[in-house]
């Protein structure tokens, strides 16, 4: 397969096939991520969500199909994955080819409200702080495509809510395309324009989320979309509650 990096902002996946042993995790998958859109990728575990994200990040090579991605991509992983031997700002600035890398890093850290920990060692950060540093490291690269691999899964409920709001605000301000891999239907409905459910290696459901922002959990439209998404994941709203 080919991973073509082109000077376009739209991401395009066509006929993507990826096998692990005899089973095809991705089996002829097609997906478009237009500029400025926010897509949430859902699916049961093992449905290939992370494999797709890793393919777009260039970390995984699929057997067949074509993938066109914009040149500037950034990943936020489930664990913060900071270099423990580099201070927070050095982590954010790592690999930046600019002379003013430190200023850019500080600016990004301000955006994620982490100015007070610029010189801290990563192992002294709380889970939420470390994840915000990871987010700053992605933002500072000014990506056309932001790949989020369950970035809130390991956080406590309150921290998760604040991080979700932060990501929503940053996405609105920067206007990059975002792909969020998540298990959490509510999180998808809170953040994304479109929810995509992976089933048997292909897109099982593509759902437009046309709710006004900022969104709230309580509204009837929210509940309707929620049960539709849960249904496609094989759950009823009662089971998920």
């Amino acid at each position, binding site marked *: 397969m080919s991973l073509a990096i082109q000077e376009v902002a739209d991401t395009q996946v066509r006929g993507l096939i990826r096998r692990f042993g005899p089973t095809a995790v991705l089996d002829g998958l097609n997906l478009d991520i237009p500029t400025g859109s926010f897509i949430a990728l859902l699916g049961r575990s093992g449905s290939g969500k992370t494999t797709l994200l890793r393919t777009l*990040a*260039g*970390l995984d090579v699929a057997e067949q199909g074509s993938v066109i991605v914009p040149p500037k*991509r*950034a*990943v936020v*992983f489930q*664990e913060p*994955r900071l*270099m*423990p*031997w*580099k201070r927070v700002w050095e982590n954010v600035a*790592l*690999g930046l080819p600019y002379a003013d890398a430190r200023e850019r890093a500080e600016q990004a850290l301000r955006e994620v409200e982490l100015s007070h920990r610029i010189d801290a*060692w*990563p*192992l*002294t950060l709380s889970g939420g702080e470390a994840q915000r540093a990871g987010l700053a*490291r992605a933002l500072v*690269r000014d990506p056309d495509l932001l790949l989020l691999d369950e970035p809130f899964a390991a956080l406590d409920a309150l921290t998760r809510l604040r991080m979700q709001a932060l990501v929503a605000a940053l996405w609105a301000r920067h206007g990059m395309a975002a792909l969020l891999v998540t298990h959490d239907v509510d999180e998808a409905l809170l953040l994304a324009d479109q929810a995509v459910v992976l089933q048997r290696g292909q897109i099982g459901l593509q759902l437009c989320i046309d709710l006004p922002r900022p969104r709230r959990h309580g509204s009837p439209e929210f509940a309707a979309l929620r049960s539709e998404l849960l249904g496609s994941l094989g759950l009823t709203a009662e089971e998920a509650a």
Partner: protein
Amino acid sequence: MTEPVINLAAGGTWRRAPLSFKARLGRFSLQRAALRRAATPIAFLLLWQTASSLGWLPPRAIPAPLAILLAARDLLASGALIHHLAVSLLRVLAGLGIAVVTGTTLALLAGLSRLGEDLIDPPLQMARTLPFLALVPLFILWFGIGETPKVALVALGATFPIYLNLFAGVRGADPKLVEVAATLGLSRGALIRHVILPAALPNFLTGLRYAIGVAWLSLVVGEQINADSGIGYLMMDARDFLRTDIIMVGLAVYALLGLASDQGVRTLERTALAWRPAARLGR
């Protein structure tokens, strides 16, 4: 030792005590602990001195602590101790220097490329099983009886721990962080500099600590054969004149040197690995 360790030790109670009191209590119990730990060695020395003074210990076999102290003073005053100490230190430093350069180079070559591993690792793994001190007769034949065989013995012995630990450290770098480096677009050189080498540094320092231990051991062996200077020579010479007290001084000097160099590496670890929580706690 710093506060957190103390607090861990004193914080076993669930009832809230004023922090300053707790800290005071902690400091007090720390001092008491230090005293307790010093008690046995001090008691041992007192007992030893008493036994010697009462004539229970033959001075030829085991001189009294005070006699050893006096011998050390004489050796210091004559300048002999300093001279031999300097010679020994230089030998260890030269040998260690060679070992660090060789061990690091080989470990990086083997750790960073498959070809390097296939070429370098098998012979080193084979050589490491050889008791290297058994090479002394060969070294004397090859290098004569000057400085070379002694430095070479130290260098050879100290190379292995550095190689083995650093190689393991380079190979053990967290693949998740390597992946991050790929998404950040780091070049191979930048990946090695920013991710792999810092990840391997703790292992390198562990290796260095072992290497220093081996270096002193090799020196002891090297200096007892065909040497005309160094702490080992001082001890061998003393044996010919039945000066047990000087032999004891030599032993004490070796012990202090070992202790000091270990402390040196610990200090190095605390600065170089400041990012580790363990380093901040002073362990």
